[in-house]
């Protein structure tokens, strides 16, 4: 097996995540889909790290995890605030701003 197969797997996961963002209404699930996309990017980074023979890719994957952790905190806090206001976590319900 060629190590590049990991890249194809990552591309699939990334796309699944992106489509999930488009399809799911629950804000938390949407956010989980974004996390999936980030992880797909991480897998790509790690694989390229191996292909290139440098550890920079792994370092960057590590930074992505740190950033994701911070992002999750903020994101979930925002989603919770909305939930407390509207008793709903559906992204379709926040629809006052339009046109």
């Amino acid at each position: 097996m060629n190590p590049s197969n990991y890249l194809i797997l990552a591309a699939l996961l990334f796309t699944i995540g992106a489509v999930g963002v488009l399809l799911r209404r629950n804000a938390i699930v949407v956010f989980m889909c974004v996390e999936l996309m980030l992880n797909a990017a991480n897998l790509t980074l790690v694989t390229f790290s191996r292909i290139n023979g440098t550890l920079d890719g792994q370092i960057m994957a590590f930074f992505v995890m740190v950033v994701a952790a911070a992002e999750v905190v903020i994101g979930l806090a925002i989603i919770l605030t909305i939930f407390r206001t509207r008793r709903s976590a559906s992204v379709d319900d926040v629809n006052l701003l339009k046109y």
Partner: protein
Amino acid sequence: MAVHPTATCQTSTFLVATCLTAASSMSISPLTTSSVTTSPMTRYAMPHEVGHEVGYAAASGVFSATWLLLVLPLAGALILLLGGRRTDRWGHLLGTAASAASFVVGLVLFFELRGRGAEDRQVAQHLFSWIPVNGFQVDAGLLFDQLSAVFVLLITGVGTLIHVYSIGYMAHDPGRRRFFAYMNLFLASMLLLVLGDNFLVLYAGWELVGLSSFLLIKFWEYKPAAATAANKAFYMNRVGDVGLALAIMLMFATVGSTNYDSVLGAAAADIIGYGTLTAIALLLLLGACGKSGQFPLQAWLPDAMEGPTPISALIHAATMVTAGVYLIARASPIFTETQAARTVVVIIGAVTIVIGCVIGCAYDDIKKVLAYSTVSQIGYMFLAVGLGPAGYALGIAHLLAHGFFKAGLFLGSGSVIHAMDDEQDMRKYGGLWRLMPVTWVTFGLGYLAIIGLPPLSGFFTKDKIIEAAFDKGGTSGYLLGLTALLGAGITAFYMTRLFLLTFHGERRWSSSGERAKHPHESPTVMTGPMALLAVGSVFAGGLFIVGGTLQDWLAPVLGESHEEGAHTLSPAVVTALTLLVAAGGFAGAYLRYQVRPVEAVARPDSEVGLVTVAARHDLYANTFNETVFMRPGQYLTRFLVWLDTVGVDGLVRGTAAGIGGLSGRLRRTQTGFVRSYALSMLGGAVLVVVAALLVRTG
């Protein structure tokens, strides 16, 4: 990344030229800017330096006060606008004073200029570096030369008279101060337009003129018609403005500068390719058509008569609408070089003459008739400047003379409208000459001037244009000459009609009853300016034309006119023909509207359609007039109005509505759903990735 431009593409000669011009405080723009050596500018970089570079004289002495011309009215406008109600009591006086002061400055400068040798008569004043983007310099500078001088005098002179007149005309209007502020603003903008020393400054003035015109047309905004008219004027002017803007861009792209001397020098030196030159000229023409109400952008001008009458006189007769002629005259080296563009100019001029005349015959509204008369007279100017070097000065001469008599006519009509309690229908006038003698005389002189009665000014200027048209030679010369002749005839007809309907015949109004009118002469503050303008209408033409005074004066700017060329028809024949045709028009109108009674109400459309019935009753000369001019005129009018509303207006409105509709529909894509947004993003991502992969393989 960047290489210093002077290092790559400018030779020492160019540097010398730069030094010379810099010494005369006019900086030519360094040509090119970027490290991309294949930029279109470099192609013209070399020849540019050898173009005819006549550096303008630097402003010194009295001329260092050129900027005062602009600043005086601008200061007036600012004080009046910012001062608010506090300035209500004396605002009109300040406005008039600002305008008069500007006129005085203009006079002083003019005489100073006359006092100089012919070669020193182009004085430039550098104000400040306006846009010094890396390699591109636009210096805001003023240029006071022979051409701007006459315009300055026309603008400030006529402008001041109209200011004085407005003191009386607007006496009872609560917004008089604002009105004077706008008028001052207009003067400043117009002066900026004619005084700028490069096309960008001209453009700035151009847009400001459009803005102030918009404000003034809209002055009585509570009238829906005024609001609509202002919008219409604004839209149609924008169409022209786009042309001007594109022309300037194109100039910059090819020459690397927008200064008059660089661009026109390059044009005169055959540096710019013929196609580009023609494109520039046509785009300039589009701009000129918009501003001057020429075919096919003429429809806004009559509507703009909804503004107060002084405005009609100032903007829509004497000054603003002539900006197009100024533009073409200013860019004359470009037009001289491109036969194709000049052909378009003369065609537009000729078509507009006919359109203006024919429609002028059909309206009953006194101001609309005058408006279409303006359209047609500007057509003459276009025709003249389209004839090339032979005609530039003639066009300007007609423009100046027209400035006098048309302003006088408008002011006179304002006086009449004022006297008749804002009634504008000529059919409801009649026999006013006894009641308003001063108006009658001044208006009459203007009327005689426009129909070309010798030795009034219109005679000289129009006659020369017709002559020049014939002199163009060939079939086209005959066609143009005959069109111009025809125009002269119709002009005589409809202007006589207007004059007779207004001042002579029986009184078609009553001095008693519910709609009683008590016409009276206007106060001196109004009649005074009218009288002065009448004097101008009488003498201006002769002053300009006899002995070629104006032509000689303007020759350094516009080039020598070829007076000695062979004539197609001898001048005497042309003059005789013109007089004959005009007399015919006069006679037709006299017979129809003086000898026969005039209905106080225009006949309804249902009756107008019965051509045979009308023909049986009118077997005399007026029948001829009616069938040859009026009926086709009315049909043509209707057709043109239809064309106007459906075609041109439709186009303008259609575009606006189209964009509006597109906007309304596109707006719906902003659904407010995060998921839709994400969808559009993913769609965009797919597109970008596809594009990236395509350019990789491609």
